[in-house]
């Protein structure tokens, strides 16, 4: 056992956990004040639900046979390690870096949490909380857990058989979530008064806070994926930083040219786009390659977010434009920028260098195949699942409730009460109804906004 590597993986796990609250604020700042709590909750509930499933069977399905090392045709991990059965804390290490398996359980759990959380941005302002929770549980079970096996497990078929390089989840996390986001945006449909009413971010500093926490946590996500605090982990770290910085610049430049301004929301979005794109690539490319990937991803995603207006789907917070597109960009660019040295040192799954580094187009084809498989699988299942949930219990709140605000309707809360110091307007009109019988009034409530 290596305490240094274990410390690194455990701290990285904590960092990745923090990404979900970070994402919640990134998204939460972007919605209107009347649905920020719902947005926070859609993310927070992923932490709760996925953790429970992961402990019960998720780990087992995704990684339960990872140490068995078959020849790469494995499509799921089985139920052998249900409830983390048999993984005692004394247990042997996971793979070769001297990290106990139970630490990797924690680390990989955080990936399983944030992936469905990413989807939530597409259906901001209008989803039923119980429907969403159900979706998260089922989608995680039949999409994320197996896909994580395919991509991350040493014997997963996308990894071992297709020789795809996806270091920290360009396909398993971002394309996966982005495709599901597109599906749900289609299933739920457009928000009331979309493109008519302005739906501007209610708290841009929160978006920035979220971006900051995401950036911070993402070092755990990418560098932690090395499962080792060594040269490779360090190189992944600097690549992550380089690409993200370049993506901020890429996005801002596109914005300046197109809209005339460098915006705060653009900087935050560019950072996330860069983080997404470098996620699969961070252990295959050089720092210079990372700068290039970041710059391209920032620019492409800045352009991609306008697609929804052209194609007419209401992906509210641009999960498709940032995560699906950014994930594809990063996954494919590996096929161009992967260097011999990096691939040779980090990968043992038969992957090859990219086109620009003497590797031909083989790897590019593999990358495209990996991306395509995950994209299609996730989209189809998410669409079907969303459709069924919608038919059975309704996935969307009523129009009146949406206008009133999901926070009030779904959670019986409102986010802020800044009413003047020394006396408050709104709550002054309220009274603690533990005394008074508030229920009748509550039922009469839903008239209109």
């Amino acid at each position: 056992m290596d305490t240094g590597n274990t410390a690194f993986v455990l701290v990285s796990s904590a960092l990745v956990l923090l990404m979900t609250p970070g994402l919640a604020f990134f998204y939460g700042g972007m919605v209107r004040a009347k649905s920020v709590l719902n947005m926070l909750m859609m993310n927070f509930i992923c932490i709760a639900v996925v953790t429970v499933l992961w402990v019960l069977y998720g780990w087992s399905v995704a990684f339960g046979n990872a140490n068995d090392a078959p020849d790469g045709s494995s499509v799921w991990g089985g139920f052998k390690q249900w409830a983390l059965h048999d993984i005692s804390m004394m247990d042997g290490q996971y793979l070769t870096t001297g990290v106990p398996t139970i630490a990797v359980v924690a680390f990989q759990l955080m990936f399983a949490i944030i992936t469905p959380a990413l989807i939530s941005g597409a259906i901001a302002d209008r989803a039923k909380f119980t429907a969403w929770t159900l979706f998260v549980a089922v989608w995680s079970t039949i999409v994320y857990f197996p896909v994580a096996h395919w991509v991350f497990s040493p014997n997963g078929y996308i990894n071992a058989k297709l020789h795809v390089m996806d270091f920290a989840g360009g396909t398993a996390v971002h394309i996966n979530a982005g495709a599901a986001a597109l599906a749900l945006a289609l299933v739920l449909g457009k928000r009331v008064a979309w493109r008519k009413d302005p739906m501007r971010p209610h708290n841009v500093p929160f978006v920035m806070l979220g971006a900051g926490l995401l950036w911070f946590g993402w070092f755990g996500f990418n560098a932690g994926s090395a499962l080792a605090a060594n040269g490779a982990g360090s190189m992944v770290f600097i690549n992550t930083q380089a690409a993200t910085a370049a993506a901020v610049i890429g996005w801002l430049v596109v914005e300046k040219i197109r809209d005339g301004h460098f915006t705060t929301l653009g900087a935050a979005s560019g950072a996330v786009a860069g983080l997404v794109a470098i996620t699969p690539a961070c252990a295959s490319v050089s720092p210079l390659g990372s700068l290039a990937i970041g710059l391209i991803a920032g620019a492409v995603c800045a352009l991609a977010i306008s697609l929804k207006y052209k194609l007419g789907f209401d992906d509210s917070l641009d999960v498709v434009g940032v995560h699906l597109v950014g994930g594809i960009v990063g996954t494919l660019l590996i096929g161009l920028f992967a260097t011999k040295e990096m691939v040779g040192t980090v990968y043992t799954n038969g992957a090859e260098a990219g086109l620009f580094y003497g590797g031909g187009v083989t790897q590019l084809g593999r990358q495209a195949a990996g991306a395509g498989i995950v994209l299609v699988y996730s989209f189809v299942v998410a669409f079907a699942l969303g459709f069924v949930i919608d038919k059975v219990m309704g996935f969307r709140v009523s129009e009146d409730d949406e206008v009133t605000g999901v926070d009030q309707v779904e959670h019986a809360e409102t986010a802020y009460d800044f009413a003047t110091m020394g006396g408050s307007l709104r709550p002054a009109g309220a009274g603690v109804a533990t005394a008074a019988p508030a229920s009748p009034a509550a039922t009469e409530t839903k008239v209109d906004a």
Partner: protein
Amino acid sequence: MKLITAVIKPHRLDDVKNALQAYGVHGLTVTEASGYGRQRGHTEVYRGAEYQVDLVPKVRVEVVADDDDAEELLEVIVKAARTGKIGDGKAWVVPVESVVRVRTGERGPEAL
């Protein structure tokens, strides 16, 4: 001169503004307000304690208008603000003795 004050639902403001503009009125002043009336508020729950919020968000629009236009304008506003559901609000007219445009000091109809 008259002052028309209308307390309306917030999401009708845009339509009221457009209707007024179509009518030829190019100025108005808006304030955020809260209304209490037939339309009920809602209940919030924080750690099991229920809060009855019985003030409903409204928007208060003020338009100063010529005596002759006032009645018609009132109709324009009322029509644009109407949803037909409870809580659509009220509008009222008050006599105004003088109006000034701050920038120029102009008085009366020219001030608008």
